[in-house]
């Protein structure tokens, strides 16, 4: 992953949350009506079919795509080639930040700014600081876990372009879908459609991103 695409990702993530501050870069593909192309969605009727199709899409080198199923499918993350999440590293960073804040906050106030004798304990005693260090570390880690998870998932959001596709609602019942997004560098309206056809998808539809 190069820096340019990283910046692009960050921009589009920012534009999702703060549309008043940032704009998404201009769409690469536009339909005749002038709307941006969200991507191509293909329908599958059985778990094994969608599983093997996911492997094919993975091997074709796509990175911005998703499989939508009515229930969790074991080993799907392997079939999709999803890499381990960055969330643990982010949470670890938050934990260290929390501990550091606690150290500075307590040492700063009780040793430098306003030294006060409490129960005759020495000023430089580290023991009473440990619970605060622990709690603040846990607090920031929990915040990072929740909000980092939401940000990485692109949540919360009011609408998703896939919901404009009538047949997609069967994903809550008995159908499986693979959606490949137009922002993917490998995306090509014709080639991607062909790939999904070869993988056994039916009702392959181009989805517009209507603002």
């Amino acid at each position, binding site marked *: 992953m190069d820096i340019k695409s990283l910046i692009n990702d960050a921009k589009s993530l920012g534009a999702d949350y703060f549309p008043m501050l940032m704009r998404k870069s201009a769409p690469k593909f536009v339909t005749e009506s002038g709307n941006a192309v969200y991507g191509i969605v293909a329908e599958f009727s059985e778990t094994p079919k969608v599983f093997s199709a996911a492997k094919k899409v993975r091997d074709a080198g796509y990175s911005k795509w998703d499989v939508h199923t009515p229930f969790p499918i*074991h080993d799907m*993350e392997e079939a999709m080639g999803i890499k381990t999440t960055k969330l643990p590293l982010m949470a*670890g960073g938050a934990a260290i930040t929390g501990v550091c804040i606690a150290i500075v906050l307590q040492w700063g106030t009780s040793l430098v700014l306003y030294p006060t004798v409490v*129960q005759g304990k020495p000023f430089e005693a580290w*023991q*009473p600081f*440990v*619970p605060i260090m622990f709690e603040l570390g846990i607090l920031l880690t929990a915040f990072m876990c929740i909000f980092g998870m939401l940000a990485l998932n692109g949540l919360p959001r009011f609408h998703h372009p896939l919901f404009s596709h009538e047949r997609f609602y069967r994903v809550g019942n008995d159908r499986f879908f693979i959606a490949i997004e137009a922002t993917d560098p490998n995306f090509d309206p014709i080639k991607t459609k062909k790939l999904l056809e070869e993988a056994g998808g039916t009702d392959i539809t181009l989805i517009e991103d209507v603002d």
Partner: protein
Amino acid sequence: MTQIAANSPAPDITGLQDADWQARLEKIAADPRMSEENTTIESASVSKIAMGLFGVGVVGLVLTFIGALSINGRHALGAFEVGVFTALAISLGSLFWVLVFHALNASWSITLRRQFENIATIVWFPAVLMIIVALIEITQGGVLLKWLERGGEYNHLLEVKAPYLNAPFFMVRVLVCAVAWILISRTMLSWSRQGDESGDRYLGRKARRLASFGIPVFAFTMTFMAFDFLMSLDYRFFSTMWGVYFFASCALASVSAIAIVATLLRKAGKLDGLVTEEHFHDLGKLMFAFVVFWAYISFSQYFLIWYANIPEEAAWYTNRQQHGWQWLFIVMALGHFALPFLLLIWRNTKRTTMLLCGMGVYLILMVVLDMVWIIRPMVYMNAAGDIDPGLAGIWLDIAGVVGVLGIFGGLVARKISKSPLLPLKDPMLHECLHHKNYV
């Protein structure tokens, strides 16, 4: 309503029919991983290791005995007790895990459970040593346990505590606890072995019932033995956290020991595909959890005593903040918590067999140091005026620990070869064969 005849078998609430069960057993037996060669280990290949460990153990114990004669009986008994309580922590922790696995119907651990059961059954060895220590203490009138000393001047604290801290009741408690541990662990292993032969799926439910009642029994016996032998080394001291503190060492030491045993078995070419990196990952998670748990418990205990500053409690820690023991405090904080915390938090450490085995050895060493931290300073406090071997006497400490743990390890190695390496016909085995961590 139809009347169920009094002696008819209980209806199976799982809905699993005998025919289904037979089909499942056949499917498991047909699995190539369940071959005879993969699931059993010949006693010949184990006896070499066992003999080596016995040799080391006997040398260690002989050296401890020499130390008792040449240096000081107190120091020798202290070193010996460090070994006894590390061995007790390993086997009692294994007993705890066996009970928990049965009570919670855990399926991930089944391919490892026979090793837990094996180590739990060896609890007889530290239990017998514990009885011997108690007998020495009582007949000698208190070697390390000062409250057993007869005569002397009037001591109000001892008078008040006499209903609990007296020799006959002490001996009764030791015997009751030892018998309870040996009975429960042997029953668990024998049912597990019976299942290998008969494939009786109701044994699992029987084991679950015993396990559910066994956990409180384990909790009380473990707590009172920790009180009697470790906390009452200083009869003035008291801590309601003490049982949990010892339990943290139990759970940690046993999981570490299992990681070592499982690695050795995998290196010997056994349990291929049965104990995978997924199982090591779970063992690693438990290790990590109990490293943190130990730190949490021991700090809470220290923190409350430090804050309250009540003389008879605080003395326990002030004694350990001088004469060089403060260095052990720092070693424990960094070595028993910070370092393993940072190492075990990484997924790859938990999933790499050799790394986790290394962590197991290291953490058992840390549990030994924890026992040293509990027992040894009191020996020096109590033995004021006796010969102080100083740092030159450190060979005695090593000999005591190595002696007990060597023989303990030899017994475990011999036990492992005596039955298949996993419960062959466990009701939940089919789940364990596909165990995978999705996180």
